């Protein structure tokens, strides 16, 4: 029972934490772009250029791709965040490819063949990344293993000697007497 609760709890916190991170990231950057556009002329803000699509349904995909693709020059930013020239070029390329009806996978492959896997913030599962993708599962399994081993060992309260003492000591008058004497001695000494 305790095991199941612990497991559920850990899974829940894990899922919740990733969701929270995702939603705050997305909300933060989108809000920033919208508010900037509202205040100043969009041309004045590099990296927040207004992108016109022939079909509005391309826009969510565009934004999703910018979130998931990494700027090759400024390495800790994605293409949506970065205003380096290379990111501007790549945003324009992605827009062009979307207009040409390329799929997300084709677009990512196009960039991967030029900038290597480095550009994918969500790396593919392959021989270099299996450990990265698999480590959460491994850690959960390891935790389960430890829990199982821990539960299989006899609990301290089930230890034979402890209840013996508990049961007998209150009724054992000679022990009580001795205890009182010892305590009394100690108090006298102090």
């Amino acid at each position: 029972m305790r095991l199941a609760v612990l497991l559920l709890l850990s899974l829940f916190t894990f899922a919740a934490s990733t969701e929270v991170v995702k939603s705050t990231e997305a909300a933060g950057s989108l809000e920033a772009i919208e508010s900037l556009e509202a205040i100043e002329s969009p041309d004045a803000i590099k990296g927040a250029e207004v992108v016109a699509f022939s079909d509005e349904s391309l826009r969510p995909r565009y934004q999703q791709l910018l979130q998931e693709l990494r700027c090759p020059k400024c390495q800790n930013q994605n293409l949506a965040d970065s205003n380096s020239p290379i990111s501007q070029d790549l945003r324009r390329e992605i827009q062009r490819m979307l207009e040409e009806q390329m799929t997300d996978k084709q677009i990512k492959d196009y960039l991967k063949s030029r900038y290597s896997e480095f550009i994918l913030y969500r790396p593919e599962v392959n021989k270099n990344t299996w450990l990265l993708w698999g480590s959460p599962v491994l850690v959960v399994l390891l935790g389960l293993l430890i829990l199982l081993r821990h539960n299989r060992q006899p609990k301290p309260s089930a230890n034979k000697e402890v209840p013996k003492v508990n049961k007998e000591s209150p009724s054992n008058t000679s022990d009580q007497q001795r205890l009182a004497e010892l305590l009394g001695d100690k108090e006298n000494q102090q």
Partner: protein
Amino acid sequence: MNRLALFIPLALFVGLSLVLLFGLDKDPTDLPSALVGEAFPVFNLPSLKDEQNVVTEQDFNGDVVLVNVWATWCFACRIEHPMLNKLSEQGVKIIGLNYKDQRAGALAWLAERGDPYQFNIFDAKGSLGIDLGVYGAPETYLVDADGIIRHRRVGVVDDRVWESEFRAIYEQITGTEQ
């Protein structure tokens, strides 16, 4: 056995520390190149000196060349330029890729500092740059006679880099001693 198990956390810690220690020496800006071993991308761009003259990869296929990505706005290119002049004097064929630059400024640069290039590709919009996966200048590619990229250097090529990264491959594919 149980006593030995107590050392597991210590072993893990030491292991992790070693991994991180070796990570310190790695240059995070040194990206794996997707193009080494691949053919030089097909392109069709004006040359720097003559707007009407269109150059393609066919113009250097058949030769072992260095393709050097440079621009007047690129500070490190100033440092690199004397090395390119020197290599050119030694007979290394160098093709320039003038990347997202102004034509007049680039021509003035060559007039002032010397022109080590066989010719220059004028890539104002950076389209060939994207096909090459250029993310900063200078970059230098060693392309063999079959048009295959054999080595890529992001950053300045100086004597040390030439000796350690380029020379052996260059001599091997040209079959010459420099």
